């Protein structure tokens, strides 16, 4: 698409784009987006396709991709929902960094081209959309939910918790499953068995919850060979996390808990720790 076409389209841009389409604001400058394109049914290999997009300081990369899809090329496929950093749907590689595209402003990259790719370490379904199946399986494996025998027994009232007990896990409960940490983690890329930062952090979140009784069930999975121990504390997961969950810290804490459990077997009789 030429610059002139882009500017002409910008003048007719609809309301689906944030801060969109004041011709005065967009009439002078454009920015190039290079989008990863791959349709497994028809393409033998991926390619990049460049688009000229009207530059607007208020736009984020997601706005630009939406603009392309709405006004230039409806075949571009990407995943998004809330546009406000809550749903975790729009994670992509922008210039090689895993980010939420709803939080990556064009002005951070202007005037240079912005290269957008699907999250690495995941199979590509189509264009910028990755398959979440493997991630969901790992997430499910750590049982990220409350486990206790009397979970449906409300006769004693609610399961109360002190602010100090809440503080032990609250940070880890902020995960939005955006999978940026999986794209940033080098271990995820080459260790199939590794559960990955988000799943481990969420497993740890429930292990630290004073109301939960599923520690042993969860740790059966987390403590197996490379499921958690594969982490070499690179720490990139915590660097890219948009919600400041600190999965790397959660994994180190979980490792310490796992090691304590390991040595307790030798000094305490079976079941004494319950």
């Amino acid at each position, binding site marked *: 698409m030429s610059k002139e076409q882009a500017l002409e389209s910008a003048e007719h841009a609809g309301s689906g784009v944030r801060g969109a389409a004041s011709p005065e604001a967009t009439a002078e400058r454009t920015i190039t987006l290079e989008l990863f394109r791959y349709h497994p049914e028809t393409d033998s290999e991926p390619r990049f396709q460049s688009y000229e997009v009207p530059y607007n300081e208020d736009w984020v990369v997601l706005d630009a991709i939406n603009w392309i899809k709405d006004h230039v090329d409806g075949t571009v496929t990407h995943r998004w929902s809330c546009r406000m950093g809550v749903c975790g749907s729009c994670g992509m590689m922008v210039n090689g960094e895993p980010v939420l595209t709803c939080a990556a402003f064009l002005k951070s990259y202007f005037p240079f081209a912005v290269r957008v790719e699907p999250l690495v370490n995941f199979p590509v379904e189509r264009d910028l959309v990755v398959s979440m199946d493997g991630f969901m399986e790992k997430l499910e494996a750590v049982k990220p939910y409350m486990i206790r025998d009397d979970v449906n027994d409300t006769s004693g009232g609610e399961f109360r918790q002190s602010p100090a007990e809440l503080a032990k896990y609250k940070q880890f409960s902020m995960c939005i499953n955006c999978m940026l940490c999986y794209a940033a983690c*080098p271990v995820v890329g080459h*260790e199939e068995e590794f559960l990955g930062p988000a799943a481990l952090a969420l497993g740890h979140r429930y292990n630290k919850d004073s109301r*939960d*009784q599923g520690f042993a069930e969860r740790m059966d999975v987390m403590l197996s060979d490379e499921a958690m121990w594969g982490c070499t504390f690179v720490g990139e997961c915590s660097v890219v996390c948009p919600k400041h969950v600190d999965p790397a810290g959660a994994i180190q804490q979980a*490792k310490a808990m*796992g*090691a304590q459990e*390991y040595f307790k*077997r030798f000094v305490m009789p079976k079941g004494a720790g319950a």
Partner: protein
Amino acid sequence: MSGSDGRGGGRRARHSGEAFWWALFSAGGVMAALFVPAFVVVTGFLLPAGDPSVAAARAEAFGQAVGCWPVKIALLGVIALSLFHCAHRIRHTLMDFGLRRYSGLLKVPCYGGALAASLWAAWVLWGIAP
């Protein structure tokens, strides 16, 4: 109430041996990060600093201290744990370089090497006269 202290159902989680190696790695990390640099500063810079005769007296006092059994044991702990820390990191680095399928086999040279070096350190410490 259960949770982080309750562990749930009175049952222990199933473990792989990785917890053991990680515990050594973790303890060795503390040793390597805190005590080894302190030893380097003390033995490499502080002891030899200043007047040569005073430095020689200091070195002799230090040598006598190393001859005490509690100090020998503490030194062996620092040395051995640091070696296992190193061995664990090397093993995982080798796995990252493509030897992941041999992760079990790599334990032999890595941890075996750390054990051998630790035994050698113990033998040397044993031989230091009080």
